[in-house]
């Protein structure tokens, strides 16, 4: 008798906890945001699928090859073409075109997170390579140009991009925040003037040109500045070779952070609590680092999750110029290959969109943690 009562009580307590969670504004807000993000994701899939459908069929098979086969046999050529279109998901196995709504619906079912099995299929024209059946929660498709599942392609390339970006973020903030603080200490002073000149000149450098010049100076033995070659071309086994690309991104990224640190700090410096702290006799440094910086960081902190998660996307120019096998190259490769790799394009779009939505949500949540004055409301 006693034990059942206790169990009931436990159950009631758990029920109450759930009820309280549902009354919690922050929790409701998160649930609402996640649901609306899922809705946006579904719409995005529909839009991207429809956009890709606007590309003509001729983009998905080599017209020259078609004509070559048609020279010997028209039937063979047509069969070859319908097979290519089948592999691109534009026609079914019999050569009949697939409706757009059908492909959209199938893709949405594939990305919705529930346990499913994708049956095995052929990946090439002659039906020799079998694609094993796939089981899991989110199926993003099979990349033909990489001959692998999209999730595997991204997972195998994410590591290096993420590592570079992690160092980049750490070093950018390490240099840019102190620079911004130093500039804000005396607006119009010597440090502020030098910093402003640096920022303006830095902004004027075209990024692509800067990367190319740095590559030729530091990494390319056969380049324009081969005599000044440091032999730092990217090499998997030597971590030191990551220094030049990281330096490039950090150098060009500093102004974007410093300028905001400076501005937010100057905005805070004119507020009442700073005047109060000053009149109470607090030292300038104490005011700067314990009072002003904490308030000025609130709008900056909001961007940190976006920067971290954006790191997975990688940087196209840097990876291209330094030949780093990261994720930054994937989208352009998928779009500009001989035939566009549809599954890879759609998979990357979905992943990038999901990343940006999650990071905005995390940014909002971190802002609440940092600033108790801000409250989220589910309405």
């Amino acid at each position, binding site marked *: 008798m006693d034990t059942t009562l206790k169990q009931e009580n436990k159950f009631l307590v758990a029920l109450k906890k759930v009820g309280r969670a549902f009354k919690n504004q922050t929790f409701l807000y998160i649930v609402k945001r996640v649901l609306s993000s899922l809705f*946006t994701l579904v*719409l*995005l899939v529909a*839009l*991207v699928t429809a*956009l*890709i459908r*606007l*590309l*003509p069929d001729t*983009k998905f098979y080599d017209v020259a090859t078609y004509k070559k086969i048609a020279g010997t046999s028209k039937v063979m050529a047509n069969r070859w073409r319908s097979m290519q279109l089948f592999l691109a998901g534009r026609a079914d196995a019999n050569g009949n075109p697939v409706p757009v709504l059908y492909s959209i619906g199938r893709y949405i079912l594939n990305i919705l997170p529930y346990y499913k099995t994708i049956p095995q299929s052929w990946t090439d024209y002659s039906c020799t390579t079998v694609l094993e059946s796939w089981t899991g929660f989110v199926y993003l498709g099979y990349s033909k140009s990489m001959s692998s599942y999209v999730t595997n392609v991204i997972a195998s390339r994410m590591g290096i991009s993420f590592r570079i970006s992690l160092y980049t973020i750490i070093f950018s903030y390490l240099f840019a925040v102190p620079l911004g603080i130093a500039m804000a200490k005396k607006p119009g002073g010597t440090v502020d003037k030098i910093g*402003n000149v640096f920022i*303006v*000149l830095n*902004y*004027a*450098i*075209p990024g*692509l*040109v800067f990367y*190319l*010049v740095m590559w*030729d100076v530091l990494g*390319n033995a*056969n*380049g*324009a*500045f081969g005599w000044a070659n440091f032999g730092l071309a990217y090499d998997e086994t030597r971590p030191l070779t990551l220094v030049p690309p990281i330096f490039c991104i950090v150098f060009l990224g500093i102004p974007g952070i410093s300028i905001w640190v400076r501005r937010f700090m100057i905005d805070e410096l004119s507020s009442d609590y700073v005047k109060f702290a000053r009149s109470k006799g607090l030292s300038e440094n104490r005011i700067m680092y314990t009072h002003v910086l904490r308030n000025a960081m609130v709008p900056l902190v909001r961007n940190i999750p976006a920067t971290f998660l954006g790191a997975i996307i990688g940087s196209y120019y840097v990876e291209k110029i330094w030949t780093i096998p990261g994720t930054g190259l994937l*989208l*352009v490769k998928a*779009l*500009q290959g001989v035939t566009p790799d549809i599954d890879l*394009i759609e998979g*990357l*779009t979905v992943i*990038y*969109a999901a990343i*940006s*939505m999650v990071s905005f949500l995390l940014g909002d949540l971190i802002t609440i943690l940092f600033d108790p004055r801000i409250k989220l409301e589910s309405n």
Partner: protein
Amino acid sequence: MENVENKQVLENPNDQNLDSLFVPVKIDETESEHIAAEPYSYWKAVMRTFIKRPAAIFGTISFTILILAIIIIPFFAPEGYDASNTALIHAAPSAERIWGSDLMGRDLFFICFVGLRKSLWLALISSAINIVVGTLLGLAWGYFKKLDRIMIEVYNLISNVPSLLLYMLLAFILANSFPEMPSEAKLIISLTCTGWLGIALFVRNQTLIITNREYNVASITLGTPAFRIMMKNLLPYLLPIIITQLSLLIPGMISSEVSLSYFGVGLPVTTVSVGAVLNNGIAQFTLYPWELLWPAAVLAFVIFTFYLIGLALSDAMDPKKHR
């Protein structure tokens, strides 16, 4: 003793003896209507603040140099400077061709400045379209609360579609549907098809901040039509921020032209424009570095100029700094 007397005088202000101490002031109608303080004119104050900024001085000087360069230099262009010349392909800088030749044997110096003229025009037109469309839609987006949900969804959607996919599609659709359309018009369409979104979001955020101010609430209460409120109440308030955005958008558009060319969806490689010339240079950089460095220097100078002007404008147009 004197103190006591004074006290008595103060306590009796109606004392008849005091009248003789005062001289009545002559009333002058014209004098009393005169306002000694200088009337505040917003744009005059902007000018006054603007010319005091060092950034503005440097910016104006380099802007003048830039405009003079793109007007005057093309006049001195020799015959056939932009025709391909097999004898002069990749010629190094010399007295005859001070910046050398590019991969088609064209004179790099004149090509850079003639190309800059075209690129600046294209950037100006596409920035203007982006700003006008973005501002109008942003005002409506911020003002009508019911539009907000739909527009946020549209923004989330379009900003998440890879821009390269959009550009490729646009390039394809335009090439098929309008074969006779000049490539410059195609470029402007590419640059403006999604460019207004960012500005619209920016204007929407600013509008949300000011719509609940008293003067707007008063206008709404008095039954002013929405369009009039947007044009007469909101737009003048937003104008300074929008002008600053414009000056920062122009170099951004030139950079976009460069990256569009880089991905092969911009102007054709034979066109004389900064993007096309720079991208030819990128391909030749390792062997013929001047073919990249000179156009890059021109591009850097343009970005520098507009950034300085934008910086000075954003300070000068802030009414809080007009004291």
